């Protein structure tokens, strides 16, 4: 099964790299994105990128954006391009097809984030040459790695569920963007509508906790959400149902 998952992931990644027509054109597009996240943004932030742990957080958005687009293309796109039925008629199990697509989306988003962070580090060091080697705080890097991965997982699993219900890639991408927007906005709005004393209690409780506890708690919530979404998507990704769709 792992081999089958990797086969699907390899194919999806290859497709996304060739979506601009040729590998050269696609790599040019990727290079442009690396320039934005790995050069332009770090230049704007400067040495604070490594000195201030919170400055690295913008990189955590990268997997969310890339994973959502990729999973929409991988599922709704496969159906739209009429390649899904042939895939379902092969020896691959439903589970390995779905997990392969989720793994590809996570690998694409998370991999891009890590490479951008590495390029950003190089940029900051080149610009600040002569001031010693600048490195990310290990803790900040670990937080970025873990939350980037879990965030990519959330978007990939949720995106797969959305894409299964969408007739086209465009519709899937639009629905996914709305979902991401809601996930970000609802907690903020939720806090606003809470009674003042409840809100105060929440902030008091949170500020009493150390960062490690908050981080572990948030990671646990994200991981649980990832698993729930994955289970829901696997229940929906059934061959006969996909054929009828």
């Amino acid at each position, binding site marked *: 099964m792992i081999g089958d998952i990797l086969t699907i992931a390899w*194919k999806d990644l290859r*497709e996304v790299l060739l979506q601009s027509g*040729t590998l050269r054109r696609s790599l040019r597009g990727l290079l442009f994105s690396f320039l934005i996240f790995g050069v332009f943004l770090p230049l704007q932030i400067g040495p604070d990128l490594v000195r201030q742990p919170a400055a690295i957080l913008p990189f955590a958005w990268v997997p969310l954006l890339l994973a959502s687009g990729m999973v929409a293309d991988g599922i709704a796109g496969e159906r739209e*391009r009429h*390649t899904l*039925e*042939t895939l*379902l008629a092969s*020896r691959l199990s439903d589970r390995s097809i779905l997990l392969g697509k989720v793994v590809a989306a996570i690998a694409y988003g998370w991999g891009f984030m890590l490479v951008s962070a590495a390029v950003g580090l190089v940029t900051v060091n080149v610009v600040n040459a002569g001031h010693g080697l600048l490195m990310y705080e290990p803790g900040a890097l670990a937080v970025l790695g873990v939350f980037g991965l879990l965030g990519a997982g959330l978007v990939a699993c949720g995106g797969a569920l959305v894409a299964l219900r969408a007739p086209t890639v465009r519709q899937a991408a639009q629905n996914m963007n709305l979902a991401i927007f809601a996930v970000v906005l609802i907690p903020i709005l939720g806090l606003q509508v809470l009674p003042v004393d409840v809100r105060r209690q929440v902030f008091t409780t949170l500020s009493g906790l150390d960062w490690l506890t908050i981080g572990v708690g948030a990671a646990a919530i994200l991981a649980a959400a990832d698993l729930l979404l994955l289970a829901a998507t696997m229940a929906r990704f059934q061959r006969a149902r996909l054929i009828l769709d």
Partner: protein
Amino acid sequence: MTECAIRTDGLTRDFGTLRAVDNVSLEVPAGAIFGFLGPNGSGKTTTIRLLLGLLEPTRGTATVLGHDAGSEADAIRERCGALLEHSGLYERMTAQDNLEFYARVWHLSPAERRGRVRELLSGLGLWDRRHEIVGAWSRGMKQKLAVARALLHRPDLVFLDEPTAGLDPIAAVALRDDLTGLARREGVTVFLTTHNLSEAEKLCDQVAVIRTGRLLAVGRPDELRGRARRDRMEVTGRGLDARVAALLATEPAVESAELRDDRLTLRLRDGHDTAPLVALLVREGVAVDEVRKGGADLEEAFMALVGNDA
């Protein structure tokens, strides 16, 4: 006893109130090229999906390569290849990448992959174009590649859903020849749907005719032609017109007369001689160039079956 690749018994599939496949019972011998003929919407594609275990039957059973399609669909798909309604090719990838991907799906070793991909692409005249993006190819080339993909892992049974649909006659003949050659060389059983009757006649060892989900007839093409029981005479020449056709239609030996594109086609009743009809044509002033007599072709047999069922 010839081994059966496919056996169905009362196979039925409903979609709500629509009965797409209605009590289909047939046997496909191993190693045969089996044609499944029917007009659009007759249930051909649904039948293939049932046999591949992609859909569950509402009633009845299907056994494919010794496995039950309802409970052992994975085992069936492990041994089958398929070219379905759409080619299923990844048009953003090259031809080689497409085959490479499916070779990995079927767990071919790296050496087997290389050899098999080269063998199939070379056999179909596509080897020199293996690095081209498939999206830029013609439909005929894509269909060839899709056939290659279906045969990549040397399946015991391959399903082809209208493989020559949308191809020009030259491309269709080329694909048919390639398909016949490949199928014979590989010793694979082919289950092929088509509404190209000429193709079915040339390609298939056995055919079945389906309409509105119901099986109307199964047999060899010559058996089905025999069932139409219509001898035919075709006349070409100068002076053929509607008056002559109408006159011939009144003759006792003639069941019907049709004039199209300066060719007069007479469907004859059993046991009647054609010589008096030729003599009649000459008396009416027709300068006869050619007279051809033959049995019904598969198209007529098909039209007879489908028309009788209407």
